[in-house]
């Protein structure tokens, strides 16, 4: 009896391990500073990476293109962009007062079709724009779904502003109730998440402080979004936090939400979307 219970537990443990190792690495942007004096001639440098540990570099670097939105709504070109083996780095001049958004979005299509009695998968890297070209004439039973990934961070020169927090209506987006550059230990912060422009209700959002490598406890905190898509966190300690939420794709963390009311057809791929942001909590 004891033995069988033990083996069951072991089985459960190894299944959990398999799940966690199968989890996608964490995608992140790490700003060198989140609070600038606002003298007009300051520089921000940003690391962008996809890694298991926060904030270290342990996965291949990504050719992501970051879009920098300035407080006045203009787009600021990045400088000194370098895509390395394990990370990408770029600089951003901080010339205006207010809050800047640094954002990477990646929209992909995945799925399959039948051609001449054979099932074919859509090639990796297919986007909504290239979808039509990716499906050959004569294909039948076309099953596709979209995956929208968004990675963000925010920095502020002088006083925080909110002009960059607009919804484009696609994928998961964060609209702050508490400004992401106004977070402090022991204070409650509220963020609203939208999915395709509508409140993303009942999703699990996780927050993990950086520095994972040198501690035993992951220190992950999680909370569910309410009907308005709002989630509340109270920060236990100062530092950079990775805040993430996703739908679909059997993510190890950040995944959540109830199963769809009508289960998808066995062949139909599940729509995916993910959002990750790095925020600094002041001590």
């Amino acid at each position, binding site marked *: 009896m004891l033995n069988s219970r033990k083996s069951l537990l072991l089985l459960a443990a190894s299944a959990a391990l398999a799940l966690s190792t199968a989890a996608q690495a964490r995608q992140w942007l790490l700003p060198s500073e989140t*609070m*600038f*004096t*606002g*003298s007009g001639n*300051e520089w921000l440098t940003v690391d962008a990476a996809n890694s298991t540990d926060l904030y270290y570099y342990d996965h291949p670097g990504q050719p992501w293109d970051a879009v920098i939105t300035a407080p006045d709504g203009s787009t600021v070109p990045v400088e000194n962009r370098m895509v390395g083996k394990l990370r990408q780095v770029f600089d951003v001049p901080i010339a205006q007062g207010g809050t800047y958004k640094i954002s990477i979005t990646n929209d992909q299509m995945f799925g399959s079709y039948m051609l001449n009695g054979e099932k074919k998968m859509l090639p990796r890297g297919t986007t909504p724009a290239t979808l039509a070209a990716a499906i050959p004439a004569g294909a039948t039973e076309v099953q596709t779904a979209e995956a929208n990934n968004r990675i963000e961070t925010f920095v*502020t020169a*002088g*006083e*925080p502003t909110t002009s960059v927090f607009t919804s484009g209506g696609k994928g998961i987006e964060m609209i702050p109730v508490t400004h992401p550059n*106004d977070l*402090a230990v022991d204070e409650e912060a509220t963020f609203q998440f939208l999915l395709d422009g509508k409140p993303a209700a009942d999703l699990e959002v996780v927050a993990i402080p950086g520095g994972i490598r040198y501690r035993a406890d992951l220190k992950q905190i999680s909370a569910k979004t309410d009907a308005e898509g709002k989630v509340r966190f109270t920060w236990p300690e100062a530092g950079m936090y990775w805040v993430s939420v996703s739908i679909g794709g059997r993510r190890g963390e950040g995944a959540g939400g109830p199963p769809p009311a009508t289960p998808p057809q066995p062949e139909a791929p599940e729509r995916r979307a993910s959002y990750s942001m790095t925020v600094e909590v*002041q*001590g």
Partner: protein
Amino acid sequence: MMDSKYKLTLGGALLGAFTTAAVPATAQTMDVSVTIPRLTVAEYHKPYVALWIEQAGKPARTINVWYDTGKKNNAGIKWLRDMRQWWRTVGRTTPTPPNGVTGATRAPGAAKISFTAGKGGMPALTAGSYTLVVEAAREGGGREVVKVPFTVSAAGTAKGSGKGSFELGAVSLTVRR
């Protein structure tokens, strides 16, 4: 209530005017002592220090900021944000550098400063609970915040003290009339 307070204050002022008391000042004054510890490090830079007053439900008030005022083009303001709690709480929403409350950095030892209500950044403190917050940030060193809660009496007086461990030593305050 307001009236009686006003009369009391007026009475005090009249009394001050007609007597030759040892302490003739009737304006409310806060005496603060901030100790900067002497540290034996290879390269020592005097810390940036900010002092501000917090009161629940009211905007924080900066009363003193010590920074490197001697740099060309006032370049020392760049590091004001290293006093990160001060910067987040009040520094970034007020002019940089803040008007009328700045001074040069100070050498280790006990710095004694008196703030007069209504002058510089110092507000008049009515009866109630306050916190004096002192934050020190040292180039190449650490950063520390000491909070000194204090309660101002109906007479407009208060005492408080606190202590830092690394970048700040003893902090004390006396509010007097």
